């Protein structure tokens, strides 16, 4: 039965996956670099404006190293990234590292709180819906998740504002300017962004979890358990769920990658001082070094989540675990 080549040990597969992630990261950063440095044309001209003299532009080009070949600039930028030197902002001449630092932590806090909030709720709803497949509960959950998935994140946000801030008046609509001096204030400040993000992420997570569990419930070995006289709960808990754990963990990690897109909209709407807001502002001022760095940070987090999902999928395969 066991005819897999010896090279397919889990460790080998994981190492291979990590290698692919690393190569992907290089390609992605090249794409980001290409888009921000080469597409816009002459950066020096843009910075100085149309009125600048050709001499001034030439001088700035020299100073910025723009006359070097693109591949050299890419490599030195990459080397800078790797050593933590993200360059200098065009707009306010501050090191990008300094601009990003605090903002990144705020965004991570937002994502962390959302994750803590979402995972237990989404898992229980998703598994519950799969177990009660076809019931009223399942259909209600399905309709709700498909509705949330089908509307833009900003609509979920505006709806949340209308309900919690305008109608009920429980929470402030914006986080900006809230003094974080007490637990309740902090809770209130985080509440709206977290609620919005949670809706977006958990809808994905519920759908994927439900699908993963249903797939294992439909296997012959679960039918076999039924024919052994197992109760419905035993079939699900002893036979379906242990085999669905890998796919579920995979679904969780993949759904969390939706945080990356969601956070961009949510931070903008609620004026939340995170890295996404910083980036959207940088786009409007065309502050390219800042955009590059933010984009790479987003890609890194996105990639690590999907790679993590893959690694879990590999580890959870019983054929690979017990050789």
């Amino acid at each position: 039965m066991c005819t897999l080549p010896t090279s397919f040990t889990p460790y080998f597969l994981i190492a291979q996956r990590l290698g692919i992630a690393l190569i992907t990261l290089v390609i992605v950063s090249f794409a980001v670099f290409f888009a921000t440095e080469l597409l816009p044309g002459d950066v020096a001209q843009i910075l100085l404006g149309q009125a600048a003299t050709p001499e001034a532009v030439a001088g700035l080009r020299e100073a910025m190293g723009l006359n070097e070949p693109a591949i050299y600039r890419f490599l030195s930028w990459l080397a800078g990234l790797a050593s933590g030197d993200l360059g200098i902002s065009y707009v306010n001449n501050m090191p990008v590292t300094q601009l990003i630092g605090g903002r990144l932590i705020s965004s991570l806090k937002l994502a962390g709180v959302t994750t803590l909030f979402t995972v237990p709720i989404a898992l229980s709803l998703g598994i519950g819906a799969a177990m009660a497949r076809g019931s009223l509960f399942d259909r209600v959950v399905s309709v709700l998740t498909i509705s949330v998935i089908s509307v833009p994140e900003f609509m979920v946000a505006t709806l949340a504002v209308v309900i919690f801030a305008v109608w009920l008046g429980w929470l402030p609509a914006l986080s900006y300017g809230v003094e974080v001096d007490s637990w309740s204030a902090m809770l209130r400040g985080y509440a709206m962004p977290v609620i919005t993000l949670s809706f977006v992420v958990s809808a994905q997570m519920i759908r994927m979890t439900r699908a993963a569990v249903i797939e294992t419930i439909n296997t012959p070995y679960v039918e076999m358990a039924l024919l052994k006289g197992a109760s419905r709960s035993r079939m699900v808990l002893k036979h379906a769920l242990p085999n669905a754990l890998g796919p579920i963990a995979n679904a969780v990690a993949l759904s969390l990658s939706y945080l990356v897109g969601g956070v961009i909209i949510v931070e903008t709407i609620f004026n939340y001082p995170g890295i996404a807001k910083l980036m959207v502002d940088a786009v409007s001022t065309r502050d390219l070094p800042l955009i590059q760095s933010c984009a790479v940070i987003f890609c890194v987090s996105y990639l690590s989540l999907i790679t993590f999902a893959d690694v879990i999928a590999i580890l959870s395969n019983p054929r690979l675990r017990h050789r």
Partner: protein
Amino acid sequence: MTKRTLSRRLPTPRNLGYSFNWVGRIGLTLILFWAIVALIGPWITPYPVGKVVDWDFFGPMSQKFWLGTDYLGRDVLSRVFMGARYTVGLALAGVTLACTGGVILGMIAAVVGGWFDTILSRLLDAFNGIPSLLFGLVVVAAVGSSIPVLILTLAAIYLPGAYRFARALAVNVNTMDFVTVARARGETTLYLILREIFPNILGPVLADLGLRFVFIVLVLSGLSFLGLGVQPPNADWGALVRENIEGLSLGAPAVIFPSIAIASLTISVNMFIDNLPTRIRDRSE
């Protein structure tokens, strides 16, 4: 026996496997409604789209202005009708480009295989490693926003996904014996792709096109909402929400109806696709 085979031969929608339940029909009706509005929009707007027609801004729904007025006092119904053109049109153009490109490349990769497949798959997988909205942000930051740039960006975002999907389907079909028979007969790659593979992945590809259309509408609306999509004075639905976001606390119809328009389009596409007969939707993955 003869009777049964005969009744199965009659080309009624049910026999062809194309019958929908009522949810699917509602979805289809809404999709057709917005498609028609997008097509004939300029001729049915009650007021000129850009014209300030009312002194009152964020006006309520009334006999004169069915969906109220916006932050400048323009007619919302007219603007939503025109917005349909941008939202539906741009998304359709984007999804068509993405799926055409993705499906063609995917089928070639599946049939040709070898290093061509490996390199293309790795490369496009890498591009899948960029979150979609972020990609849009970076491109718009680099080259500014215009209609062609938006279409190309949206297409570029969803091409890798369409490729991956079509390739997976085509790889499955490619392992089927009828393709092997055709190959052993000496058929060319082009024949294999067009006659043997394409007809057998068409159904799932069309269903996938619908889902991708929804994602494109969402990303486009998101970009416009951030002010990076369709630029004023033109506006798609996302931009309409952005313009009128101030009216949110007033509960103004000007901000509610564009949102409803987006939701009605995306939800109806999802409803339609989800209720397609399994024969079409079935993914041989």
